[in-house]
């Protein structure tokens, strides 16, 4: 089963990099994009929330540094909506950021939805990591 991905990043170049890298992988299916946290939540976790099959997870690549609502704030809001029952059962978030700061990594660790942390730029190694994550589970 191909895993759907949503890339949330305000920078178009970074979205392009992810898109191009992921397109080479056979594991992943549809690559969706959102340029703000608000857009991501409205599009996929609101009126017509995205649905996947019971076993298929939804992968979200979440940028941290975004205007208005940053990545962590978006995840918090996502959590709230999921407790309302919106969206698929399995959601895996991978942080996607140029920052390697301890604070950001620590904060990512503290969120149960976040399963990994990818440092920009997105490269082959990062794809392998995600693929391994899914083959293992």
């Amino acid at each position, binding site marked *: 089963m191909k895993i759907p991905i949503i890339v949330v990043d*305000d*920078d178009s*170049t*970074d979205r392009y*990099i992810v898109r*191009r890298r992921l397109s080479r992988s056979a594991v992943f299916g549809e690559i969706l994009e959102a340029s*703000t946290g608000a857009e991501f939540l409205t599009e996929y976790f609101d009126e017509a929330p995205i649905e996947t099959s019971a076993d298929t997870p939804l992968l979200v690549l979440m940028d*941290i*540094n975004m*205007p*208005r609502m940053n990545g962590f704030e978006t995840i918090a809001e996502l959590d709230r909506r999921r407790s309302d029952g919106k969206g698929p059962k399995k959601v895996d978030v991978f942080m996607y*950021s*140029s*920052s*390697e*700061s301890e*604070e*950001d990594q620590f904060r990512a660790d503290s969120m149960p939805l976040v399963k990994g942390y990818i*440092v*920009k*730029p*997105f*490269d082959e190694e990062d794809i392998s990591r995600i693929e391994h994550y899914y083959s293992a589970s």
Partner: protein
Amino acid sequence: MQKFFTHRTALLAGISCLISVIISIASYRTVGVDYQNRLDENAARAKELASYFASETVGILQYADTYVQSARREYLRSGLDGVRGYMDTVSPNRSIISHITIIDGSGRPVFNSVHEIKPGVRANDRDYFIFHRDNEGDVYLSLPQVGRNSGLLTVRYARRITNPDGSFGGVIFAAMETEPFTGFFAALNLGPASSATLVGNDRKIRARSSYGRLGPGQDISGSRLWQELETSPKGLYLQTSVVDGITRYYAYERVEGYPLIVAIGLALNDLEEQARGFRLSIYAIAGLSIIIVAALALFAIRDGYVAAALRREIGQRRRSEAELEAVNTDLTQFANSASHDLKAPLASIAGLLKFCVEDIDSGETDVARGNLVKAIDICRRSAVKVENVLKIARAARDVIPREIVNLELIVNEVWVDMTSGMEQPPELVLHLHHDEPLKGERPTLKVILENLISNAVRFQDPGKADHFVEINSRSEENILHVSVKDNGIGIPDSAKDSIFDLFSRIDERSGDGLGLSLVRKHVERMNGSINVDSSAGRGTTFTFSIPVTQGAGDENSDNRR
């Protein structure tokens, strides 16, 4: 630093000297007055001592007299046995009477209560024997003689023994050491130039506290005492001795009932010695206390100075700490933002370049070319961003000269720059009511207005028909207040706290998120303040206030333009 210390010290040393001089004068005066008082006191004292001496002498002699008369009675009644019996019954007070002796009419000693009578000894030549033999007067105190047996100066209180037939029967006397007479005076320790003298009517000394030049038994007929005695049996006079040059107070008194006179001489030198001693001790105390005071004062100054220096240093440290904290906060903020905003473009560039390598390898040169162009653009934008961050860093340190500024002119310049490319620019409304002429930092004011007006123009509310930007200004004392108001989309409460932070963006229109940060840095450098009044949908008003100086002419600026 050294100078401050020295001046203070010198001042205090001067004060100490003054104090010491005052104390010295005061003590001298005091001692002077004291000295005079003491002289007066001592005149009175001399008189007292003379009275005391007289009464003591009377006491001693009366005792001796009583005893001698009783012994005489027993002798006349019962001879030697009578005397012996009497003496066994009534022992004489040994501190007054050493022994009793009886000399018969021929001068031969017939009785001695303590000593063996040496055969062949005659007392015919003694003054007391001669006196009683030749005189009817009954009482006689002999001249002092060194006792043959005791070795001490002794006077003899002698009474006449008259035979029943009226003939001279000899003498009975009580031998007394002279020391008890004048002992009280010796105990006063007044010095060798002062003296207590017991002298007989015959002008010969019976007892003296110290003999010095005048020996025991000395004839002092030449003394002024005899002149004084003619005027009064009791008195006081001041006399400077031609012999030793010493001035003395002399107090004298006739001993009532006895052919004796007491005289007390108090030498002024002795008093002066005491006074000098007293003065010296005053000076010593004064000097010592001044040294102590000065030392304490110096320490106090030093401590005070040290305390002041410490306080200053603590103040400086606190200020430095506060500055450091401010810097640290800035740095932390910067570090947090930099790991995103400055690093991110590099990550994007790296990603694109990796694709370029892959694309060149696979011959996709067009794609590669496109990505390279994109990478170059990101580089350029990043450089601008870094430069803007550096501007903010520099903004804290800028030294910009103040000059006369025309606020309206600056606003119009900025407005033209900002809106020249716009099809439908917002309306500009000016209400400039500040005091002129206005002196300030022209370039800084321009940068501030650029950023604020740019925000006002960018964040328009599409829901509103008309868009305007209103700029107000007023002066209050020496503070210029300027506000830039728009009817745009406003700032939600959640974002208001962080709009002045480095890299804080609201949305895509925010640009780098550095503009307001720069504005705040400049405003704070000029000792001013900036605040925002806004809420979502209501528009935004930024107001900054900076101290300005009124006046014509340039300060600081070099007149080059």
